């Protein structure tokens, strides 16, 4: 199946010996000049690229003080060195967060610090050249911006921010990843990452309605009439979810779950053909202008449809963009009744607690479920507004709709969760080797509870995690059907039809 060695599952995470250059050959495709131009970056790397590069870096250092601080304060203690899933899986020292950042720090020292300018190599400063740039392109796209290393950094250096800055600097000289920048372009022009036009969205949503109906009919329930309302002015809730929920499996099953929850709770809601994407790859490429433009669609749709609140579907970085960045990018949702967006998991759990949803746990009895914390939810946000509830809320939901739940090793859960291996713009097929290997630490922990407890359902609240794990599970000999969404479990267990009073 693979032309590289798939790690063996032993149930253990072992820190490997250092193997320089082990993942140097894994590189994303580069974006075409026309695309870069369309996105207002340099079309391609010209002969004056070094000057442009340093100007871009100077600008970033000025604009984002945090980046400069992070470059200055690292004492190379090495706490982060063995925390990155890509390092654990490849042994390539450039995937030690500190040494990946060194790619930027060495240039920073050379051109932006007195010591580096004066004594160069002695101050670990490095001349910018083609080789170094190529290393930047390789390894800054072998960081999934998951920020696990930051949890262990005594100074709290945000590695993802360094990676984002590096990608932005490279983009300004026309060196960028095709995958990421194509998606940004599609979100900017068509409104969603997949590039679905309104008629495609509407037809898909209609199809999902039929699917829900048919599945209910199969178990003898008729005439429930679960709808996926589109562009309904005056609805209470605008649901914004990743467009993957309209395309891929198992994503689609969670979409069915959201619709059933709204229906059963009697909440008036709508999807929007304008704000048809929760995800925001502007974040992954560290470009705040594009991030703002993409985010603004949600804003505009909420205003135009006169909804009372915005609810976010299962997507890690979308939630981070809405929860942490939206306010700064486009101002507060002060025209809404509820000023902050709400996570679908918070909404669902509230309804469960109020008794508004009747759940038949036995519907999920074939599953022994575990929950994988997604990085952007785990380390960048909360879900209900109190610290730590981003960990408890999804688990409470699962326990409300499933009888069998098992936790993976706590050292790899919560804020210490491992990335799926495909986050932060790494979810593209040409780098499948790093994706499969990067998933290894998480796979080890899953294999362990599979062995000990028979775990067979890997529950998620992130579109990237879902796509990544369905892709890599078969490499490890597991069925892709074991991967699913939290609202997929809700969808299975939710008793439809006659409602009890709320």
């Amino acid at each position, binding site marked *: 199946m693979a032309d590289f060695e798939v790690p063996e599952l032993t149930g253990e995470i072992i820190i490997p010996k250092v193997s320089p250059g082990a993942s140097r050959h894994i590189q994303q495709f580069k974006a075409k000049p026309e695309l870069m131009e369309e996105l207002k970056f340099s079309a391609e790397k010209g002969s004056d690229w070094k000057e442009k590069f340093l100007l871009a870096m100077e600008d970033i250092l000025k604009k984002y003080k945090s980046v400069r601080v992070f470059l200055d304060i690292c004492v190379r203690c090495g706490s982060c060195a063995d925390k990155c899933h890509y390092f654990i899986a490849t042994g390539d020292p450039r995937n030690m967060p500190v040494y990946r950042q060194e790619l930027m720090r060495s240039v920073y020292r050379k051109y932006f610090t007195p010591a580096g300018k004066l004594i160069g190599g002695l101050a670990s400063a490095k001349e910018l050249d083609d080789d170094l740039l190529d290393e930047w392109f390789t390894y800054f796209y072998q960081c999934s911006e998951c920020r696990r290393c930051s949890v262990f950094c005594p100074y709290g250096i945000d590695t993802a921010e360094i990676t984002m800055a590096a990608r932005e600097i490279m983009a300004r000289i026309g060196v960028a990843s095709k995958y990421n920048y194509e998606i940004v372009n599609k979100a900017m022009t068509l409104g969603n990452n997949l590039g679905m036009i309104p008629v*495609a969205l509407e037809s898909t949503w209609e199809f999902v309605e039929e699917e829900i109906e048919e599945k209910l009919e199969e178990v003898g329930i008729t005439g429930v009439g679960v709808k996926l309302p589109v562009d309904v002015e005056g609805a209470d809730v605008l649901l914004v979810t990743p467009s993957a929920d309209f395309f891929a499996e198992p994503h689609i099953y969670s979409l069915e779950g959201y619709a059933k929850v709204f229906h059963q709770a009697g909440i008036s809601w709508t999807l929007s053909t304008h704000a048809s994407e929760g995800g925001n790859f502007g974040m992954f490429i560290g470009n705040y202008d594009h991030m703002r433009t993409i985010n603004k669609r949600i804003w505009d749709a909420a205003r135009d449809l006169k909804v009372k609140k915005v609810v976010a579907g299962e997507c890690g970085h979308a939630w981070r963009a809405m929860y942490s960045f939206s306010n700064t990018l486009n101002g507060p949702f002060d025209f809404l009744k509820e000023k902050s967006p709400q996570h679908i998991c918070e909404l669902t759990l509230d309804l469960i607690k109020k008794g508004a949803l009747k759940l038949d746990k036995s519907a999920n009895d074939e599953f022994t479920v575990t929950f994988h914390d997604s990085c952007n939810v785990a380390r960048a946000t909360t879900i209900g507004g109190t610290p730590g509830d981003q960990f408890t809320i999804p688990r409470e939901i699962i326990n409300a709709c499933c009888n069998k739940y098992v936790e993976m090793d706590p050292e790899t859960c919560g804020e210490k969760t491992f990335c799926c291996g495909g986050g932060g713009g790494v*979810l593209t097929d040409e780098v499948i080797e790093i994706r499969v290997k990067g998933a290894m630490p998480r796979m080890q922990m899953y294999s362990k509870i599979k062995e000990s407890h028979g775990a067979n359902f890997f529950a998620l609240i992130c579109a990237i995690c879902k796509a990544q794990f369905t892709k890599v599970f078969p490499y490890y000999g597991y069925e892709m059907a074991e991967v699913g969404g939290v609202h997929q479990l809700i969808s299975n267990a939710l008793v439809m039809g006659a409602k009890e009073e709320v």
Partner: protein
Amino acid sequence: MATMEFEGQDYEVDEEGYLMDWSVWKEGMAGVMAKQDGLELGEEHWDVIKFLREYFEKYQIAPMIKILTKELKKKYGKEKGSTKYLYELYPGGPAKQACRYAGLPKPTGCV
């Protein structure tokens, strides 16, 4: 730009062999691409390819997998109307591999 030769003519393709312009696609190309992957196209493969192209003409994107499986189910019954069966037909992924044979761009995003 990479090209693919078909019946004496060169066609532009991307790094992974997807046609750059879906409208220049010729039926015979699917067979050539499949052969390179060691696949032989049977009737079910062709049903998928034809359906993909029809859908794309209308919606400018490939359908979600579920819509594809439902189409197969209509024609061949429950067993073949499944994601599992689609992956048997197209081991590289129904959306990705079948889209390439059908001359359509690769669906990308969080998928």
